[in-house]
């Protein structure tokens, strides 16, 4: 259906329905087929929703990935199934416990209990020139997090972010909040595509962006 699926992600039939799937150990009770493929639930994963909506994410199998806001590892488990080295950063201890469990059967997944607002606390572990920075953090200052972590991206790398309006400001209209976030983001990124994820996730804006060359900030 969509021509832009990264290698390692396929559409498979589960219970009579075509769904996104990756190949790996099951994590959250998702349906599996006989060949080891497991369904990727777009309602539980913003990246899954971005793929489902046919956005051009510019990621491919074996890419190096930094994932900020990995939570329990629901989405990052699928990413690690098709990507290369995958660094998963999460700040809260309870979900990180589950994330460690998810990483045990995935040798290319590296879980880190770190604060995404402080990249210097993991810059000695996460390598530079990564192909992809995925961000799903529900904290105020989501654009700042993306800007601070730009240093991990290769010049032709991609930022794939899901910005949550309510994390920035509860009272304002989400559309206005998103405009502000995008303005801030332009300080370090060229924005390639945006799309609301409302069909799957309320008040979220998905953004695909490319880092701007150094010095053009």
């Amino acid at each position, binding site marked *: 259906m969509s021509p832009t699926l990264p290698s390692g992600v396929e559409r498979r039939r589960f219970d009579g329905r075509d769904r996104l799937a990756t190949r790996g150990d099951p994590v959250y009770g998702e349906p599996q087929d006989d060949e080891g493929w497991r369904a990727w639930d777009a309602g539980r994963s913003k990246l899954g929703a971005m793929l489902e909506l046919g956005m051009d994410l510019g990621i491919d199998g074996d890419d190096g990935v930094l994932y900020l806001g990995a939570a329990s590892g629901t989405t990052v488990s699928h990413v690690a199934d098709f990507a290369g080295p995958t660094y998963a950063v999460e700040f809260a201890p309870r979900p990180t*416990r589950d994330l*460690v469990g998810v990483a045990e059967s995935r040798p290319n997944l590296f879980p880190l209990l770190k604060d995404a607002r402080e990249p210097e606390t993991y*810059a*000695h*572990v996460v390598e530079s020139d990564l192909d992809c920075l995925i961000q799903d953090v529900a904290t105020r200052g989501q654009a700042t997090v993306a800007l601070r972590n730009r240093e991990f991206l290769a010049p032709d790398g991609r930022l794939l972010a899901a910005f949550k309006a309510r994390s920035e400001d509860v009272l304002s209209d989400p559309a206005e909040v998103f405009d502000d976030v995008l303005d801030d983001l332009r300080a370090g990124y060229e924005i390639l595509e945006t799309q609301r994820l409302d069909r799957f996730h309320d008040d979220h804006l998905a953004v695909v962006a490319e880092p701007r060359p150094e010095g053009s900030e």
Partner: protein
Amino acid sequence: MSDQRPESAGWFADVDPGDLDAGAAAIYDQTADLPRDWPAEAVRTGFAADEADYYDALHEATLAATREAVEKRERSDDKQLTHAVRAMDDAERTANELAERLAEWAGVFDRDVPGGVGGAREVAAWTPETPAEERVVSLAERVVDLDDERAELRSFVESHAPDVAPNLAEMAGPVLAARLLSLAGGLESLAKKPAGTVQVLGAEDALFAHLRGRGSSPKHGVIFTHEYVRGTHPDHRGSAARAFAGKLAIAARIDYYSGEFKQSVHDDLTERMATIREREVSQ
């Protein structure tokens, strides 16, 4: 470990290949200004034979280090918090009790001694002249120490409650959050209590009197200490306590089952309290 680490060095810079403990420690103890191509550098410096070997070591080290970091953060758990808040209350009660005894005794020496811990602080500064005065001053010092300990316990509770129960601490304030945990017997049991029980935690005497047919049902227990309940007009305190307890119960469940901060539940409560407080009050 050497003191002359370059400003940007990888986690493996001072780690012997195969030394899992040192590698794990470096992941959480060190920092770097900027990332570099660590896999290539690890191969160049001989830490790893090739990139695959490096990633294997990295996987083992991050698993071990993060597992340990999680345990460490979670060990500041609900039991510690429960003990701390109970100790804080005990220290306060005991300090006040001794301060009253002290005020009575110190009054004998013909000086005007105010009651409470403030009075004890004054007495502690006296220069004793008789053996009896020595005892009085010494007792005053104990009271002051106890009060200082109470303050230390309070700041411990304030800094640890958000780790243990981020949503509950945000909603109730750290000290009330710790009291609720203490009354319920931990985060797990608080998460499993219905909102109606959370509403009257700390008012068990009144509740059981009501159940035996004496008196009206209590509108609030320890949550009365929160501004949302105490600061609401008495006509609407029941509604406020019910709404507040409902969201506290939800906050406790989020903290227990997910542990992640969830802004929406706090916004819902803010809106609900504003609505309740806008209602008219009887003259």
